[in-house]
């Protein structure tokens, strides 16, 4: 269900600031909502998102229940070499959802 999607240019110039858009399908259950039967729907959110570029952290987002369902996050990175851009979303249940892209710097 938690399908991650990332969008960034495939190519950039050295030093260029690149915009990265990410989204993952997730209900982000806040733990405050009740079901039709009145039972509290337990909290289950993506509590952490991180992006690594060339193996180094570029951006981290620590999320709380006040973040909307299907977390959509846009951030930037400075192009400094061709290589892998990795994305990780950590669920409350411990699951880590991953995606990756390649950025070519010329």
């Amino acid at each position, binding site marked *: 269900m938690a399908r991650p999607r990332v969008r960034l240019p495939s190519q950039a110039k050295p030093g260029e600031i690149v915009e990265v858009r990410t989204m993952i399908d997730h209900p982000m259950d*806040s733990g*405050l*909502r009740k079901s039709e039967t009145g039972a509290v729907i337990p909290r289950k959110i993506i509590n952490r998102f991180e992006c690594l570029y060339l193996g180094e952290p570029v951006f*981290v*987002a620590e999320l709380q*229940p006040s973040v909307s*369902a299907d977390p959509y996050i846009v*951030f*930037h990175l*400075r192009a400094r070499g061709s290589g892998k851009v990795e994305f990780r979303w950590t669920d409350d249940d411990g699951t880590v959802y991953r995606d990756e892209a390649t950025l070519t710097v010329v």
Partner: protein
Amino acid sequence: MPLPDIDRRTFVVGGTAAALALGHVTLVPRPAAAAPNEFKEVIKTLLGREPKEGKVTLKLPPIAENGNTVPLTVGVDSPMTANDHVSAIHILAEGNPAPQVCTFRLNPNTGKAEATIRIRLAKSQIVTAVAQMADGSAYIAGAEVKITVGGCGG
């Protein structure tokens, strides 16, 4: 820091009226979207210092029909170099059941101190962004949002 029996707006407006009545009127214009004072105290305690106004740009729609998904963009004026960069941006919603919304952690590899996210707002309120810089200084900005239908459960 719940204020159970009093609506926050009433509290803040009431406080301002009281200050006016007592003649404690400063000539410094207070921005309409500044965080309520008691909330600022909490932020000051958390940071261990008082954040300054400026450098932070917080963009939210002034009126949001659906509190379940309100777009937010925060930017900080910073060159993002090794010595001078933003290390963290905290987003706070004082009118939500839990005021902490999210924290972004940045470093010089980020290149540009700007991020966008979609958040839930339970009711009309002032959203606050606090940026922590590499040298330990902190900057704050607020944006008022009116909500037609609240998010966060119900």
